[in-house]
């Protein structure tokens, strides 16, 4: 099925959680802020939030330094 991640169409398996999808991208889950279908996700929602056909995911990534 298709979802939209940061404005780009992506194909994923149905039943994939937000956390499961981000792990396939090799993203450190502790360094991102996620918005899914218009709402900011709490940290404990990452493993249980299941992506749906057409879900819109925004991934805001942070890198260290300051």
């Amino acid at each position, binding site marked *: 099925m298709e979802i939209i991640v940061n404005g780009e169409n992506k194909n994923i398996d149905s039943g994939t959680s937000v956390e499961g999808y981000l792990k396939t991208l090799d993203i450190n889950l502790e360094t991102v802020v996620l918005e899914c279908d218009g709402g900011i996700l709490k940290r404990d929602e990452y493993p249980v939030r299941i992506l749906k056909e057409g879900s819109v995911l925004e991934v805001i990534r942070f*890198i260290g330094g300051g």
Partner: protein
Amino acid sequence: MIRVNEKPVVFRKGTKLKDLVAAIKPGADVFILNGYPVSQETLVLDNDECWLLKRGDVPDASEMEHLLYSRHTPGVQEKIKGSTVGIMGLGGLGSVVAVALARVGVGTLLLADYDVVEPSNLNRQQYFIAQVGLKKTQAMQANLAQVNPYVRVETFDGELSEENIPLVFGDVDVLVECFDQAEMKAKALRTALLHLPGKGYVGASGMAGFGENNLITTKKIFPNVFVVGDHKAEAKPGQGLMAPRVGIAANHQANQVLRILLE
């Protein structure tokens, strides 16, 4: 009516700045009109704000606060004097943001950090050799008192978390994220979006090394929420943090704070 050195003055048409010197500031040799230095031959117009200064003069305490803002765009300081800005982290970003916002006259700064000043900080952070070993909150409070004693400075000396950020910064107008670690940057933004909705927020990501100046940008990611940086240059072995580029990012943040406050 014009204002000269903060006092209302009635003037005649055709009056030049030099005509005001004898009555208001004998010996004045610096002339500032509406925040901009001009020649003494400049004509004044209704509602002008004029400063007549004498180079090298040390003003008395009652004049000092007004004089600190004589080069401001007129009206700016009056608008931000009632504002409170929270700064999370007083390192390379936070110490520079704090100094810039104190200079510009933000009414109250709430500074948070758990750490002490170390020698390795001085390549980019606004502290002095003699302050090594002091708490950063305490050292920065002392430095800001030297820069602008009319700014109220409050401190939170401790580690910030998802639990305490909403409590510590619930009342600020704008929150500035100046952490070093990516995990804390993410945690702080998530906390602000979930628990402090609508609050002005300016974060930062990517300013290590000495890469191009102009890759550092200010992006609006939600209404009233901004992230500054190049989003690429991570602090890591082989790529350190240095005053010039961290300073570019920090001053992007400080200017964005000002823009939010003046909106």
